[in-house]
């Protein structure tokens, strides 16, 4: 969106598509490296869901089943959703809030960087970390929990969860624009933990009280986890399309909010 408006008002800047691609690639590569080397990020975002999966899916309950689906398989979908949420929210919001609040984004904005490359890098990095988490859970389940599924089914599970990174990245961008560098991590936790609990990611959904299950209908992690559970045959009876529609609507709302923040930063609305 931002690049489009900038290019429209300044038609004389024409980078070759190859040069533009190089910028997007480098931006994404260094965003990925930056987060990979950030112990706070990798420790919380990667090890958190993996640790819980090992404990509740492999050490305990590994012979149990929920609605006909083995616990180790079921929990790949739910802890996978937790992992995707964490990787995406922390990957976008924390970095953006800090870059904005502490001046780094201004240095980038003063350079000829295409603004969209900055956001794309954050989203792509979140998707890569999401994929890494889901694959790690599956590998553990396969090796230690007897998880077996056809390759096509695994591809669908992975694809669903990685695509599910988008709504949370969008939410992270919005949060990054409306939180400060110090308050961002706390704010994310404040949203991430209750939201994932109410969506049945910590306790299987059917065991939650009725009121919580009703609240969950408006929570994006509920819909993403139901899509993932649907792939492994443990989904609710609502249609797949409904879940996607809710996630899409949520993504659009968050992008809209992020756009307001972006324009405010550019000084177009205030100041």
């Amino acid at each position, binding site marked *: 969106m931002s690049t489009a408006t900038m290019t429209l008002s300044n038609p004389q800047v024409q980078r070759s598509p190859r040069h533009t691609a190089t910028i997007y690639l480098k931006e994404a590569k260094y965003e990925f490296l930056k987060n990979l080397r950030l112990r706070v990020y990798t420790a919380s975002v990667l090890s958190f869901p993996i640790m819980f999966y090992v404990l509740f899916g492999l050490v305990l309950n590994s012979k149990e089943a929920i609605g006909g689906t083995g616990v180790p398989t079921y929990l790949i979908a739910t802890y996978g959703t937790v992992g995707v949420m964490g990787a995406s929210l922390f990957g976008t919001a924390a970095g953006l809030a800090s870059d904005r609040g502490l001046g780094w984004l201004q240095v980038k904005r003063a350079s*000829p960087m295409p603004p969209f490359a900055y956001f794309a890098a954050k989203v792509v990095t979140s998707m890569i970390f999401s994929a890494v988490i889901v694959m790690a859970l599956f590998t553990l389940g396969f090796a230690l929990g007897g998880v077996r599924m056809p390759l096509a089914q695994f591809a669908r599970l992975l694809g669903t969860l990685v695509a599910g990174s988008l709504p949370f990245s969008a939410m992270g961008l919005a949060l990054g624009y409306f939180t400060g560098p110090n308050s961002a991590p706390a704010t994310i936790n404040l949203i991430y933990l209750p939201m994932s609990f109410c969506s049945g990611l910590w306790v299987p959904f059917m065991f939650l009280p009725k009121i919580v299950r009703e609240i969950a209908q408006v929570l994006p992690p509920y819909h993403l986890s139901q899509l993932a559970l649907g792939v492994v045959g443990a989904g609710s009876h609502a249609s797949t399309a409904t879940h996607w529609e809710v996630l899409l609507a949520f993504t659009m709302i968050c992008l809209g909010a992020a756009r307001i923040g972006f324009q405010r930063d550019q000084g177009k609305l205030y100041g």
Partner: protein
Amino acid sequence: MIATLEQSQRADTANAGLIVASLEGVNKNYGHVRALRGVDFRVRAGEVVALLGPNGAGKTTAVKLLLGLIPPNSGRARVFGGDPTNPENRMRTGAMLQVGRVPETLRVREHIDLFSSYYEKPMVAAEVLAAAGLEKLSDRKFGDLSGGQRQRVLFALAICGDPDLLFLDEPTVGLDVEARRMLWDEIRRMVGRGKTVLLTTHYLQEADALADRVAVINQGEIIAEGTPSEIKAKTAGKRIRCVTSLSVNALRQIRGVTEVKEDREAVEIHAVEAEPVVRELLVRDVKLSSLEVTSAGLEEAFLALTQDTAREGNQSN
């Protein structure tokens, strides 16, 4: 077509005297704070201009306006005759800003690699590292660098695109003397390559060491402009220390006195010229003792200049 346009613009910049950056009647407010008040300011091709002023004078605001990071409330900021937010202009400018936190887990060469990729014709990485004195630090993570080294990385990011126009906002703030001199050398080297430079500083000494022209800014207004020696001449002054029974107010009335401070049992008087003030002092107070006259330091002289305008401002209010 694009190439010809760019070439002709580059040829234009080679013409000395062409205005490459300007603030025209700019007012900028942050809420009730008037950061800049009717500022007119120009930077010509090939010049090194220092915007000199105390903290909070509006220097950074001026730079941010010229970089198109914030819009003015009235008036306009122009770079290369156009809008500073124009990406074509950003391609030809480099900026070193005051940053609270730079991504710390990336290495020096990685930061440079990324920023170089934004530009059409960046400098070779080795050249950037050499120009910023970072050859031996290229594999270090940003978080492992000292304050002076960090400033040099930010400087490297400003120059890596081989820009025609460089904005350096307080490039040496917080650096020790040695690190400051090192960065000065690096800035001079860029000047030697024909760059136009606008730097902000609150050290008169720094403006003197680097700039062809100095604009003194205080409380959002440009209060003096000239070559460093002209500014120094305007601000040059003497410091007179003595023990006297005259009141501070009486001392302030003496012609040529710019500032009076009580210092234990003595008073410290700043004056444009010492002789007439000393003559007057001796006439008014025959018991005056412990008289000392020294040259005011550059910083104090500058302080006197900015306080002068503050006083005039108060009187006119």
